[in-house]
């Protein structure tokens, strides 16, 4: 029999991998413990849309058998949850939308497939903003997720369910997707680690598209080390995604040990201009001081296009969204209106009923910016600005190894606070959107508290420098304990 099964939830993914390998507890026990916690604690959080209990036990038992027979893969028996945007074979895949409220995917996304192959056990599908459009998890058809640090607060979004589940120690790790900050911002708001890899590093196959040129799959964990382990599993070329890049996957875990000494960290002047909560700013400066004291060199840099990133994003992303959402027409899958009178009625009512307000807003914005007569002024112009932003980052990375700053302008905001003001909501992603537009990797790591709520430190690196980002984040976590802080009631 195992060690104290009741305490398994506090272990990080890395610790669980070790424990399972050494046989200190079984995958079945671990699964049972976490499903028990989910059953007890999820109601208030609303972090999940589907709990895949039967499948989880079957997978856990298979993992235990694999271990017994001596051929256990890397993540054998490690529990994980998937954002409900990843297609999971035979399991409801809703994207947080009424539109796909009845959609059971006939196939696994590449990310899901790779994690399964590595032995991971899927416990649940996580709640999210509808089709990943939102920064607060309030656009979900299945209701908002609450922040385990304060249940009146938003966990951020769109991967809010994933972040809340990891923060609340219901699971050690979750997958997420990040189009404008949807992994990093909820990670910051819940005190977890959120990694968005380089565009093309992880396959988008089976990840329901929001804005195809910006979407990237990633992970939410409690430590950079855990993120490194998972990235090693999910990264790599996939012939089913033409935009995935055929480049070798480094051993991210092996790279973690490099010292901070000599690392050049860029501090963006514009990050501290205005709009940044003063306590958040203080936490960021403290984090930078910690790294400087370990020998990292802080270099002030400019990102003159920072202010352009939100408006650029809100042309490009809705444009692609408007087209990506077209396949949801009530004809082949998903929500279909009852008793349509004709074809147009079928289309209009199925979509009208199936989509929520934020998705509709973006479809309309996107349709507008692509329309004849407006295309040049909006879409084409935005693409040009996007090139400037790419250039800005490229220039910056000539002088520094990583760029550090805040992940979000404020700690977790109250549920309902921004729902009537889309622009304010959009501005929550001001620090994260640049990495999506430029396609660069970025990570958010916990760096303290403001108003008793977690604050995230944002690190951005050049393309395919996930190893460096994870290394810097890990070294920082070796010096700090912020990532070990646990919300009250979830210890």
């Amino acid at each position, binding site marked *: 029999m195992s060690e104290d099964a009741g305490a398994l939830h506090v272990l990080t993914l890395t610790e669980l991998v070790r424990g399972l390998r050494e046989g200190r507890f079984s995958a079945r026990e671990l699964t049972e413990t976490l499903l028990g916690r989910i059953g007890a604690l999820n109601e208030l959080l609303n972090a999940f849309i589907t709990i895949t209990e039967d499948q989880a036990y079957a997978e856990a038992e298979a993992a235990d058998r694999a271990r017994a027979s001596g051929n256990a893969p890397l993540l054998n028996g490690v529990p994980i949850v998937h954002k409900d945007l*990843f*297609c999971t074979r035979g399991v409801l*895949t809703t*994207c947080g939308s009424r539109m*796909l409220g009845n*959609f059971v*995917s*006939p*196939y696994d*996304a590449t990310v899901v497939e790779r994690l399964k192959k590595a032995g991971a056990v899927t416990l649940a599908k996580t709640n999210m903003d509808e089709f990943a459009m939102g920064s607060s998890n309030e656009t979900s058809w299945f209701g908002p997720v609450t922040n385990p640090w304060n249940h009146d607060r938003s966990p951020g979004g769109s991967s809010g369910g994933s972040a809340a589940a990891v923060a609340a120690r219901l699971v050690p790790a979750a997958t997420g997707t990040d189009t404008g900050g949807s992994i990093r911002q909820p990670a910051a708001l819940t005190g977890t680690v959120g990694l968005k890899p380089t565009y093309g590093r992880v396959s*988008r*196959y*089976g*990840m*329901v*598209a929001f*804005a*195809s*040129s910006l979407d990237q799959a990633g992970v939410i964990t409690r430590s950079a080390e855990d993120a490194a382990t998972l990235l090693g599993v999910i990264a790599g070329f996939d*012939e*089913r*995604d*033409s*935009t995935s890049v055929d480049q070798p996957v480094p051993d991210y875990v092996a790279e973690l040990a490099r010292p901070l000494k000599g690392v050049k960290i860029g501090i963006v002047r514009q990050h501290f201009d205005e709009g940044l909560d003063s306590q958040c700013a203080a936490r960021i400066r403290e984090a930078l001081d910690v790294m400087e004291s370990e020998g990292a060199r802080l270099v002030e840099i400019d990102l003159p296009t920072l202010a352009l990133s939100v408006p650029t994003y809100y042309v490009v992303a809705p*444009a*692609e969204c*408007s*087209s990506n*959402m*077209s*396949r*949801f*027409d009530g*004809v*082949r*899958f*998903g929500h279909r209106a009852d008793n349509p009178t004709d*074809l147009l009625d079928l*289309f209009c009512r199925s979509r009208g009923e199936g989509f929520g307000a934020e998705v509709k807003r973006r479809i309309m914005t996107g*349709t507008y910016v*692509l*329309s*004849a007569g407006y*295309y040049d002024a909006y*879409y084409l112009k935005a693409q040009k600005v996007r090139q400037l932003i790419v250039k800005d980052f490229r220039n910056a990375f000539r002088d520094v190894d990583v760029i550090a700053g805040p992940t979000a302008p404020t700690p977790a905001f109250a549920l309902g606070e921004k729902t009537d003001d889309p622009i304010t909501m959009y501005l929550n992603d001001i620090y994260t959107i640049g990495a999506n537009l430029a396609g660069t990797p970025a990570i958010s790591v916990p760096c303290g508290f403001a108003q008793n709520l977690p604050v995230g430190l944002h690190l951005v690196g050049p393309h395919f420098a996930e190893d460096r980002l994870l290394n810097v984040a890990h070294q920082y976590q070796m010096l700090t304990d912020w990532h070990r802080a646990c919300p009250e009631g979830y210890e």
Partner: protein
Amino acid sequence: MSARDPAWEPVIGLEIHMQIATVSKIFSGAPTAYGAEPNTQASLIDLGYPGVLPVLNAEVVRMACKFGLAVNAVIAPHSVFARKNYFYPDLPKGYQISQYELPIVSGGELRILDEEGRERIIGITRAHLEEDAGKSLHAGFDKFTRIDLNRAGTPLLEIVSDPDLRSAKEAVAYMRKIHTLVRYLGISDGNMQEGSFRCDANVSIRPRGQQKLGTRTELKNLNSFRFVEKAINYEIERQKEVLEDGGSVVQETRLYDSDLDETRPMRSKEEANDYRYFPDPDLLPVVIDEQFIRSVRETLSELPDAKRERLVAQYGLRQVDAEILTMSRPLADYFEATASESDPRLAANWILGDLSAALNREGLDIDDCRMTPAALAGLLVRIADNSISGKIAKDVFEAMWAGEGSAADIIEARGLRQITDSLAIEAAVDAVIAAHPAQAAEFRAGKDKLLGFLVGQVMKDTKGKANPAEVNRVLKERLKS
């Protein structure tokens, strides 16, 4: 409207939609085979399922390049797939992946013969890759429409001509030429019944001598050469009537109804579409380098125009025969195989004559021809060496066609060998002159017509086996004195 109208000049451009003959679809691995049960050849990608992504079929690019090189066009080093957005039940993703601003092929040309047999050069504006949509089936399901997505994602090459065509006949000649070319290249089966080769026509007319183009209409649903000709002619006449009555042509899309032989406007709602094209972020630009183009060029076999000229030069064929023989590569191959063992001009005559007639009679293609080129050559050799006459050869041909054996076997079995022995012919001629003294005398007196009668008698007596030329010669010689 085959006669040239003195007042109006038609201006026509064609958009040909050609199915590319790949085994699998343009963005998925699903098969493209025709005629399967509905919705059995559509993968999740073709169905536009959530989360799936398109992956370009490399063979499609290679075949498009082949076409581009064959029409002397520019192959774009960088071409881009775009999304054409519109809602339709048989368009699963709500957009069609097509090429818009940057097509893979542009600026080519094609030579055709106009109605007077003069060579004309028709510009090819562009050829771009796109995916086909599915099919909506409206008949037989009560009030419902059913969707068959087998065709969704089938690779198409849309070949757009310049507005260089000046009559319906020219348009057909151009379309036929493209049809021949793509089958030569092996990039399409050109099957029009199955919709692998169909076209839209842009038609306008203008007063002769005027440079400015008239307002055009776009004719859709033209799926045979005959309909292309009829629809364009109908449309030219219709536009003429409109203009001559003082009206003006409305720029619109019109559907050709082959049952009524007329064109009529499609619902205007369909034209109000704003397709909101933008580059497809799921696909990388298609990058083609010189080396790739070279490798494709190396696979290009001899093209119809070059082959026609070679047949004329190498075998001394008439242009018109060479043109027909090179309309299909198997036919030209058949000819060359036959000509390698017999007289080329005789081979051309027989292939375009009796052999084609026999094939037509049974609705066969040259590919299905039971008679091998060697067998036909075996017959032609017997004609050339005077073993049999051309007339008897036709009987032998039919016997061969019926499977009775080789030319040699049939000639032998039926005793058809021609009498070329001059002594035997002289004897036969003498016998006829003796049997018909009156006719012989009249011929001597100048009634030349009677020679035919006398030749006929000799042929009859020899059961057609005497060499007719020899009989003529001997008769004239005998009756001269």
